């Protein structure tokens, strides 16, 4: 099952890589990882105006030999969300990303994979055992429907057009990256603590991809056929669930949480 997903993500990584040049200016610029406590969500600019140049301006001594290209995170007013991009190991040794954090933005961050249950066909997101190992000089795609970085217990409202700063922890050190936040209707994840819908041996919390649990079983065969496509359960996907990226067109500040800002 994982092979299917991996195949999909690899090809997508190739496509996205082709899109690099014009996006590079605001793709995941590295920021010095001066300490875990410094990881914050930044507004569009720390320097008051040059919104997109600030992340790269703060690029400095690298630690973990990782880059995250064409990265982005899904906007969310509260709860959970996810971050994506093409994660590349720029060194000549394998690197394993073991975890991530987004202090000041999310209570916890996990590395997730998407797996399809071999009997029910239902697709489930769950914490990736052992993290993401990236061979020397290779890339892996983090994307909706595949591997991703899961943010839980948001402590502020993550708005489209803002930036999210993440720290990626690996066996080769920590890397801090900043990604733009975008509205997105897919990548729906219902957090169901203590329930492992996939039935796999893994005992971590599972993320049911469906937005309503009754559909999870009814639509299970579709999931199996369309792994990697999050909207395959049929029916309307926009606006359902708690996602900010739905049809909430008129009340951008309706959430209870304050807007994520860096001041």
């Amino acid at each position: 099952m994982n092979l299917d997903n991996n195949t999909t993500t690899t090809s997508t990584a190739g496509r996205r890589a082709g899109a690099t040049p014009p996006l590079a200016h605001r793709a995941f610029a590295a920021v010095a990882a001066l300490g875990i406590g410094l990881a914050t969500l930044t507004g569009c600019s720390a320097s008051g105006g040059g919104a997109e140049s600030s992340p790269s301006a703060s690029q400095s001594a690298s630690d973990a030999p990782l880059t995250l290209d064409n990265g982005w995170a899904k906007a969310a007013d509260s709860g959970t969300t996810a971050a994506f991009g093409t994660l590349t190991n720029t060194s000549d040794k394998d690197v394993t990303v073991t975890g991530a954090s987004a202090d000041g933005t999310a209570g916890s961050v996990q590395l997730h994979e998407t797996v399809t249950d071999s009997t029910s066909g239902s697709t489930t997101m769950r914490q990736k055992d052992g993290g993401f190992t990236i061979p020397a000089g290779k890339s892996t795609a983090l994307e909706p429907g595949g591997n991703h970085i899961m943010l839980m217990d948001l402590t502020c409202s993550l708005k489209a057009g803002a930036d999210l700063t993440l720290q990626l922890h690996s066996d080769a050190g920590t890397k801090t990256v900043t990604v733009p936040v975008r509205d997105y209707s897919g990548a729906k994840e219902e957090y169901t603590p203590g329930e492992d819908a996939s039935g796999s041996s893994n005992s971590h919390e599972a993320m049911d991809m469906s937005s309503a649990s009754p559909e999870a079983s009814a639509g299970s065969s579709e999931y199996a056929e369309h792994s990697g496509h999050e909207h395959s359960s049929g029916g309307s996907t926009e606006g359902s669930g708690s996602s900010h990226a739905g049809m909430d067109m008129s009340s951008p500040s309706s959430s209870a949480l304050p807007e994520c800002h860096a001041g």
Partner: protein
Amino acid sequence: MPADRVPVKPSGWSRRSLLTGAVAGAGATGIGAVSAAVVGGQAPWSAAARDETRPGQRVEPFHGARQAGVATLPQAFCAFVALDLDAAATHESMRRLLRVLTDDASALTQGQAPVNDQEPWLAENPSRLTVTVGFGPRAVSLVDRSRAPGWLRPLPAFGVDRLQDAWNQGDLLLQLCCDDRLTMAHAQRVLLKDVRSFASVRWVQDGFRNTVGATPDGQSMRNLFGQVDGTSNPYPGEEDHEQVVYGRDGFTPWIENGTSLVLRRIHMNLDTWDEADTPAREDAVGRRLTDGAPLTGQKEHDEPDLDAKGPLGFPVISSYSHVRRSRSPNPDEKIFRRVYNYDLAVQDASGRSGSGDVSGGVSATGLIFASYQADPLKQFVPIQKRLDELDMLNTWTVPIGSAVFAIPPGCESGGFIGDVLFT
């Protein structure tokens, strides 16, 4: 018709635009390919490089001092989308919105899919896509009230107007123009998804011209009256274009490299136009229908001789003709027009539309009159006032929508449209 009906633009507008247009980058080539580390820049062996001349692969630059979509050779299709900002919009949310729009527009116009594009293959043929952002009064107010130009408000009322609020104004404008309708539809969808948490769509005006290659290079567009449309126009590269559009020598632009857009939706009553025969149609305009030449000239771009008299002593170009009435002795009163046709689907279309009607008959047809100038009040309004007072074309045309937008400058890579107003 003789070969000389195909005038060549004195400016070489189209030729220059096409030759300087780069070719879309590697966006179309990476599918199923290798890792990000391997696909670096634009591979010379890419399909895009081989397909250099394919219209779908032509791109217009996005970054620069000025926004694209004004001096750009008109693409075949254009959608003008007016947005109403949410009540909760703020200075900061405007910044976020403009960043997102800029990011996605800069990618899409170069043939590359935005990071969260769910149909990235639809971005692979940019087809000279341009995205131009305009500010209505509220947008400028939120961004920097002190910079709001005095002319950024509804035009004065004209007697010929029959404005419908559904086509009026808006807080923010997205102008998407493209040589491919499918590419444009995708880009519009992507940008409106971006906009959804900031604003709602007020109106969309879909326009079209001839498709790529349908007409000889450089020929002025014909509107659905069959007229050659837009002959008298300060084209890019011509002496007065800079002054007319971006201000100079008497015109102060609202911001350097910024301009304004007056968008008028003009219903054209084809049913009553049908009642006019060729001599009456040519008399109304002052130009020949066959080639757009003035009734006193031989070719489209010949200067009309407003003093010429016919055998009976009457002016050859009549006193009420559109050509005469739209010309001003004041050289400041010039605009730069970049118009599109519209032709809406009409359900149960039948019968004929009467004089002055803006509905009925078998079509809903007209012109999306996009006029760019440094100062609408000094340039557009005096012309329209004269046409409002007298213009035989008013017999068949009715303005049904009106909007004014301030077009901010372009931005450099790393910036965003309007960023200069945030400093």
